[in-house]
């Protein structure tokens, strides 16, 4: 698309202003919501990061850069990196598991497609804490999985699965897999089946047709799914707490601890802001990559 309009005539500019004004009533409610619940809180967070902590929470209005300096401490860098690592692993596993699922669902007859999609979404109808507790019942040493392993004679002693990083990955994966499957399904399902036929007709084997046509055209859906999984996985603090037993700390836990336990609001705000900024960067990259895939490289 050519977007270069070097010199807009006054008439064109006037028209743009008129259009902007006409759009205002429609945009206002949404904008207001974003300002109240997004812009102001983020502004407050940013504001907090430059002051000293109060003894029992709150702020002491004394300017400082200590909160930012503290971020560089290996402990916190480690937690941030570990969070990114865990979220990446979860995202990758969700993609590997979710793609074949979405692909299979897109290939079903309309009736079974609906059944499968409902099955994918079904867990969301149950409270998320209850579902997490269910995992504790499944994974603990006297739990369902260990009972079966022993009953089948595969192990003699229970394997400790709960309270490990792996357990966190499983918990997060379980929680967010549907968020990968749904956008992937949407992008696969809207692919014109004649594209694959065309590839086949031109001599591409089924695998080649998948690799060169289906896969690239489903990438925007995959990227959306990755964001949907990565963002909440990175900031989740309930699962690390309950299934991870609080032993593996992720950024989300750290933020919560700073506010509720350490009563260090400014540093909690700093961590929260860093987390938010990281996620915004990830989303911006995703949007740019998706646009490049669908619209192609910019023409000179």
């Amino acid at each position, binding site marked *: 698309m050519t977007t270069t309009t070097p010199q807009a005539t006054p008439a064109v500019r006037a028209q743009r202003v008129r259009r902007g004004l006409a759009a205002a009533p429609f945009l206002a409610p949404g904008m207001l919501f974003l300002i109240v619940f997004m812009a102001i809180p983020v502004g407050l967070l940013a504001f907090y990061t430059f002051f000293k902590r109060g003894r029992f929470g709150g702020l002491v209005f004394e300017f400082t850069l200590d909160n930012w300096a503290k971020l560089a401490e290996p402990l916190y860098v480690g937690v941030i990196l570990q969070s990114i690592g865990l979220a990446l692993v979860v995202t990758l596993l969700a993609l590997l598991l979710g793609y074949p699922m979405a692909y299979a669902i897109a290939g079903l007859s309309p009736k079974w497609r609906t059944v499968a999609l409902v099955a994918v979404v079904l867990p969301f109808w149950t409270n998320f804490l209850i579902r997490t507790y269910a995992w504790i019942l499944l994974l603990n040493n006297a739990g369902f999985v260990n009972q079966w392993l022993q009953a089948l004679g595969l192990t003699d002693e229970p394997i400790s699965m709960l309270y490990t990083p792996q357990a966190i990955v499983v918990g997060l994966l379980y929680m967010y897999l549907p968020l990968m499957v749904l956008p992937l399904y949407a992008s696969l399902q809207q692919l*014109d089946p*004649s*594209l694959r*036929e*065309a*590839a*086949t*007709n*031109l*001599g*591409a*084997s*089924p695998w*080649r*047709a998948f690799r*060169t*046509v289906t896969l*690239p*055209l489903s990438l925007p859906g995959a990227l959306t799914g990755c964001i949907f999984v990565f963002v909440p996985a990175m900031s989740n603090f309930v699962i690390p707490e309950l299934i991870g037993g609080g032993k593996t700390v992720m950024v989300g836990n750290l933020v919560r601890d700073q506010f509720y336990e350490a009563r260090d609001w400014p540093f909690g705000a700093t961590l929260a802001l860093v987390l938010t900024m990281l996620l915004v960067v990830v989303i911006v990259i995703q949007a740019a990559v998706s646009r490049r*895939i*669908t*619209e*192609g490289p910019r*023409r000179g």
Partner: protein
Amino acid sequence: MTAEPLLRVDGVRAVYGDTVALHDISLDIADNEFFALLGPSGCGKTTLLRSIAGFETPASGRITVDGIDLLPLPAHRRPVNMMFQSYALFPHLSVEKNIAYGLEAEGVGRAEIRTRVGEVMEVVRLGHLSRRRPSQLSGGQRQRVALARAIVKRPKLLLLDEPLSALDRQVRASMQLELKRLQHEVGLTFVVVTHDQEEAMSMADRIAVLNEGRLEQLATPQELYAEPVSRFVAAFIGTANLLDGDATADGVAVPGMGLVPASHPLAAGSPATAVVRPEDVTVGTEVSGGLRGTVVDTYFLGGASTISVEVPGLPAPLLASVHGATRLARGADVGVTFGRATAVPRDPSQPPSFGTTVPTTAITVTDAADVRDADGTAGAPEASASNRSQDVSA
């Protein structure tokens, strides 16, 4: 037609659940032929095309290209390329990459791909658009890319599924010519699926008319027009006045009208329909010896006019056409005579009707002036006959 056909379809039967989409279709297509599968939607023409391409599996029958049995081959190994109705261009690839796709899949070398893609883009006049994405092209340009992508593979057989249906009228006419030019230039065998009889008539060397999964008639456009073998073909190809009645030794006896003379091989007494093309109908104030009727409407179409005449006792108006404009006006009392007519069998279970299957049952009417010159009899339609029907008599 050479002795050995390029494509042989032999007893192909296709079934979807309880419905039979193709009833044992057999046909041969010669090398270098421009062949059309014509029929209304749901007639099975697309199923047949997709069976040749390998996207449908017939329940029984054989399809061979150059003697090679296609049915055991998966779609990607068949020496057949297809242009899809939706074009099915890869939206994420440039024009150039779209065209190169088939050659890359084949494992052709990079340098050869470049020359062949370049050549083909010249043939379809797309050279300047090579880096565009399909979304940045017009409908006509997309169609050329789809065509280029198929012909760059140099297939023995090119299948085209409704190639012109997505184009507007203007572009369609020029692409029609272009397809013919290409077919000559690259020397390919084309099999076109279409529901548009004009499109099929103007492009194809031979046409197979399909109806409800059966092959109604396979013939040249001229033969289909002049010698339809069924009421369906007569109605579907061109415009016709269809006069239902019963066969007699020398024509069709039409209730309320008398005998319409026509040559035919039908048994006397069997249900039959007389087919009279509009240009074989003579209408004029001074025409006598035939039917009498009233002009209900005239349509000026540029090179010709269509006159619609209501004849008492007939359920629908007769249509006739003349060269140029007509001087007959609505309400004029006219005589109507028929020139050449053919007779086709009629399904007696269907109530006798009159040209109902044709959207515009047009009868060519000779202008009053022509009629006067031609004594208002059988000679007149010959004089006013269109080019096409002159070809027929040749």
